Each structure stands twice: as structure tokens, then as C-alpha cells.
């Protein structure tokens, strides 16, 4: 065990897998000499050499496409998108080629695509998005989003080992903001949900950075015992954990940092409406970013992203219902 930041935990997980498995290599813009835009691969070039730490041109379709070919040939590439927003340029390779390869040809595409996601630091409309739902909607891809350093390492390890293409959404705003104990050496986390805090009056369901918002918002909420469920994996979605939480609490707030329409939380809400109807003691409440681009202006960005106050207010309203 050592105390690492979320960012260090990702580096640690990646480095451990690369040391253990020759098939694992990284590719992306500036991942080599520069050590990555956020320094996740700092020092990797020296340790693993240019064949396993590949700087690429500014072409996401080329990065993902090359990775798909390498995976089909038996390697385990880890691609870095400099910002999650840029994955749009690699969309076709990811959704249409990687996601359908096994369905069409029975071939495994063991790639991991790292998406530094999320806002909260005035990154503006091109550097702050949460594109998880784009890929949840595409069959054949798995989508995970850790909230803690321990899970960042554990989920990345599982993603690298998973024979399917995995979209790994790491939250930029957590990189240096959260620290935690992380097991040394190999550490793999299953693609299931995690109870971040026990409770039985209400459950807040969230993932990524919103788990921390939910925990803070409900830490001291007029004595209510509020459960926080960290989804961790969006595809596969841990339906049983969600239903168990609703059965216990009967009131649910679902929080997304992504734009509201068709976000991951919409799928969670639909699941609850269909399969937990008789457990509900109030409407399923959603808190999400409205359907607007993420503003550059700090006060405007704060106004649109779900924050502690908004989540707390939603919980208070529902508790009083």
C-alpha cells in the first residue's frame, strides 16, 4: 500500500501491466518524450523504449485504427486520447471497427482507450466533455469510469486484460485532487459497482468525479442516512447492485456530470422505473449538466456542472417528499 494521487495510480497500473506483460504498449500524442499531456506516462520512454511508448501524429483515427490492428495481431495496446473530446476523430475506428470486430469476424480486440474526461477547471467546450454515453450506446464496447486512485489502478488493470475494447474514462479534475491508498503490485478491480457509503434513507447513484460531489453533499444532511453507490462500470452496468440499493432506500437521486439527455444516469433511471417500481417511495430524481456545451467562463461553468449544493438540494427535496 502506498498513498498515490489518482494520476499516479493510473501510471502505476499502466507501468505494472507493462512490466508484467510484453504485449502491453502505449501510444498517443506526446506520450513518449513529453510524458503525456498530463504526465501519466512520464518516464515510460526511458524504462520501456520507443517501441512500447509510441508518439503518434495528431490523428485519433490512426491511433485507434493502428491499435485495433495490433490487438488483432495479439498485442494489448493502450491508447491515450489527449482529451476525451478528441476521441470523436477516432469514433469510426472505435465504434464501427473495434466494437463490431468480434461480432463480425470472431476476433478479439484487446485495446484500452484512455479518455481524460470531465470539466471543472475552465477547459472550455473542447476540453471538458464526458462522452461516456456515446460509447454506452455502441454495442461491443465496455465503458468504465473510476472515482478513486485505488479503482483507477484496478479498473485500468482489468481493462488492459479484458479481451474486449474498453473505453477508460479518467477524470481530469481528479488527477491531482484526490489521493488514496493504492495496493502495490498487481491490482485488478471487477467491472461492478461499489458502495461508497452505506445508508438506507436515500441513495445517490453516481460515477467518476460526481461520486465525490455526492459524498460531500450528503455527508451531513439533517441526520439522514444517505447511501452513495459508485457505479465504476457503465458497460456492463451492475444492475443487481442498483436494484439492491433501490430496494433498501426507496428514494433515488442519479447524478451525471455529462449532459442530461441520454446520459448514463438516464439508463439507470429507466432500469429503476422498469425493475424497481414497487420499491420506489418517490420520483427518481436526476441531477445532470443541462444540454449545453461546457462554458469556458468559470462562473458559467460552475453554473452548469452539478455541484455539492445542487445535489444536496435535490436530496433534501426528495427526503422531504
Amino acid at each position, binding site marked *: 500500500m502506498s498513498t498515490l494521487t489518482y494520476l499516479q495510480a493510473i501510471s502505476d497500473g499502466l507501468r505494472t501491466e507493462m512490466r508484467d506483460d510484453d504485449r502491453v504498449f502505449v501510444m498517443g500524442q506526446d506520450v513518449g518524450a513529453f510524458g503525456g499531456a498530463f504526465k501519466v506516462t512520464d518516464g515510460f520512454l526511458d524504462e520501456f523504449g520507443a517501441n512500447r511508448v509510441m508518439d503518434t501524429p495528431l490523428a485519433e483515427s490512426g491511433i485507434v485504427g493502428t491499435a485495433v490492428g495490433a490487438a488483432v495481431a495479439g498485442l494489448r495496446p493502450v491508447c491515450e486520447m489527449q482529451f476525451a473530446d478528441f476521441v470523436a476523430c477516432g469514433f469510426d475506428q472505435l465504434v464501427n471497427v473495434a466494437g463490431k470486430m468480434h461480432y463480425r469476424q470472431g476476433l478479439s480486440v484487446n485495446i484500452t482507450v484512455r479518455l481524460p474526461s470531465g470539466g471543472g477547471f475552465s477547459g472550455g467546450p473542447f476540453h471538458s466533455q464526458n462522452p461516456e454515453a456515446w460509447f454506452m450506446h455502441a454495442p461491443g464496447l465496455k465503458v468504465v469510469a473510476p472515482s478513486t486512485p485505488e479503482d483507477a489502478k484496478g479498473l485500468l488493470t482489468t481493462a488492459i486484460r479484458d479481451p474486449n475494447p474498453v473505453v477508460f474514462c479518467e477524470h481530469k479534475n481528479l488527477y491531482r485532487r484526490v489521493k488514496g491508498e493504492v495496493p502495490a503490485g498487481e491490482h485488478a478491480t471487477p467491472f461492478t459497482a461499489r458502495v461508497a457509503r452505506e445508508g438506507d434513507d436515500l441513495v445517490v447513484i453516481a460515477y467518476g468525479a460526481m461520486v465525490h460531489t455526492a459524498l460531500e453533499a450528503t455527508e451531513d444532511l439533517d441526520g439522514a442516512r444517505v447511501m452513495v453507490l459508485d457505479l465504476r462500470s457503465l458497460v456492463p452496468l451492475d444492475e443487481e447492485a442498483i436494484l439492491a440499493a433501490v430496494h433498501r432506500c426507496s428514494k433515488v437521486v442519479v447524478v451525471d456530470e455529462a449532459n442530461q439527455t441520454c446520459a448514463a444516469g438516464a439508463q439507470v433511471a429507466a432500469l429503476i422505473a422498469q425493475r424497481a417500481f414497487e420499491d*420506489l*417511495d*418517490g420520483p427518481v430524481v436526476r441531477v445532470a449538466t443541462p444540454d449545453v456545451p461546457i462554458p469556458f467562463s468559470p462562473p458559467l461553468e460552475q453554473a452548469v456542472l452539478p455541484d455539492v449544493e445542487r445535489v444536496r438540494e435535490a436530496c433534501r427535496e426528495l427526503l*422531504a*417528499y
Partner: protein
Amino acid sequence: MSSSRTETGVVDVVMPQLGVSVVEGTVVEWRKAVGDRVEADEIVVEVSTDKIDTEIPAPAAGVVSELLVGAGETVAVGMPLARIEAGDALTDDGVPAEGQPPASGGDDAGAEATGNGAGRRLSPVVQRIAADHAIDLSEVEGTGRDGRIRKQDVLAHVETAQAPLHTESPFRPESVPKPESAPVGGTLSRMRRTIGEHMKRSLETAATCTTWIEVDMSRVERERAALGLTALPLVARATIDALREHPQLNAWLEDERHTVHDDVHLGIAVSLDEDGLIVPVVRDAHDLSPEGLGRRIRDLARRARAGELTADEVRGATFTLTNPGQYGALMATPVISQPQVAILDIEAIIKRPVVVAGPDGEDAIAIRPMCVLGLSWDHRALDGVLAARFLSAVRRRLEGGPS
């Protein structure tokens, strides 16, 4: 609020469809007279079809202006029974309808509707818990917004409601004489009269004979203990198999029309204690395992006692089982439910010394749980040999012989 009701001002109370195959119903009793004021959903009239009684609510609030059908009269489904002059009315939301003068006094506007929490918004989980614990939600105080009953309110009610009766307590309150004990005697209930008519008609119609057989229930006792069932569903299953072997008993005889059925729709007599007897039907019983039969019988019996059966659930049986044996009775001559041709009676399972084959084939006396099965059958439809063969087929299956 339906638009027709405000446009015309007059709403009909109609004879509802009380089951898929029901075409008519009889007015049993009017609860309201002409000139009486009714609230929406308040009971106006009680009607019956065969054995099912149903209360019919007012479709709208207003004043009863006309009763179109007298008590005892039978009318077709969809026919109007009464007219209500809608007005002075509370809408469904409890808001006085626009343009209506207040009712005489007019002081009941906004009053809470009656019923199990009616008029209040209830969440699915509250309704589920209330149903599971048979809670009258009108007794539960809501602490949610605008007095809404929340999950914690109904859970708290469950706890307090169960608290006072401690099963270990030696204290047993003395029975208190009922303040208004009903006088002993008087006219028979409608259900008793109906049962009487059916039974008498059966005895007048059928040439009823009864044949008995004694069955060693050792295997049934073992099996039912393993499955966690009563003996009834196991006997029911054996009966169904025997009926498939002897379909002449799974039949109806209407005058000279003899119909032998492929499917077994099994009637199960359920005692309603002093109120009488009702025979709900396990439809397509041949498709069910003993466990499935057990579940269906339990469900039907529970709903029979709660008065929740629909008319379709008490008709169409092709054969009937009755088991007064659960009360220790030894033998009976059950009356066939017309137009069926037979009824099987299951008596008490009692340990008795019986002669069995010992290890070397010699005679020995053993203690065995024995049970008498009685079959009343209609000599117009079949003869005693067939009745005996049928009983022996049931016994073979219950005792575990080749099936």
C-alpha cells in the same frame, strides 16, 4: 373529471362486466335511495352473479335521481341501474366543480375521500408494504409533503401495530360479549340459499352413489414433507392423472348431453366457515406440478376467504375435490356439483394398524397413515366398476405403484 358528466349533468350507474363470461347480474341491495347525495366512488348498490357479490361505486358525485332496477331484478351487463344528477360535485381532486352551487350546507368540500388511502397519493412501495401487511392506510399518519404517507410512516405503523400482541405472554384477554350480538335465527344468508338450491338440484338430478377406498399415505406423507406441501396438492395431482386415464369421470352431463373433457379444470371446495362454501377452479390443472397446484390452491383459498374471487374463477370446473378430512372427519357422501359427474372427497389421514407384507413376504402388522377417499358419482353417466377402477388408479399413484 369526465367531460360527459359536466356536459349532461346526468350520469348512469351501469351493471359492470364482472367477469369475461358474465352477461348479467342481479341487484341485491340498494345502498342509496332517490334524493340521497353520493360522493364519487361511494358504494351505491350491491349486485351478485352466481356466488360473487360486488359493490358498485358511483361514477360521479351528485344526487341519486332515479333507481331503474328493483332489488332482486336481474339485468344485462351494460344496462343502467340508476341515474345520478351530477352536481354539487367534488371533482376527483377534491376541488368544487366550477359553476356548481354548493351542496346544502356545502361544508364537506375538501373532505378526504374514503377507502384505503384513496384521495391521497401513494407511492408503489407504500402500497406494496400496506398490501403485504394488510394495513388500512387510512389509519396511517403521513409525515411527507402535504401529509403524504412515506415508506417510513407505513413501516413505523407495521411495527407499532404488531407490538402489543406478544405471543409468549400468558395473558389472554377474556372474550368480551359483542355489544350488538346478532339475533340467533332469522332468514338464511343469500350464499346459504344458493348452496342449498345447488345441492338440492344435484340430488334431484343425479343418481348419486358413493364408493370408498382406503389408501396408505406413507409415501404421500414423505413426499409432502420433502416438498413442504399439504397432502391436498399431491392428491390433486394423482387425481388429475387418474382422470386422464379415465376421462369418463372428467365430464359433464346436462340432460342427455354427455361431454367428456380433455382438459382438467379442478374445482377445490373452500370452506368460508359460517358464511358457507365456495368452489374456486384451478384452470388447466393438468399443466401443473404438485408445487404449482399447491401455490394456486393457496392463492385461490386466500382470495376466496377475502371475497376477491371473480365470477370466472368459480365456474367451468370439470371435476371437484373436497377435503373435510383436514378437520378429522372419517367418511362422507359428498354431493356432486352439477353438471359434473363425480366428486372426490379426501378424509382425515389417521395412523392405523394394517396388515402388510413383511421382509420375507409373510403377513405383518404395521402402523401406517391411512386415509379414506370417497367418490360420489352419477349412475346416469357411469357404473360402479368404473368408479372403483378410478379410485384404484388414484390409490396406485398415491401409494407409489407403477403409474
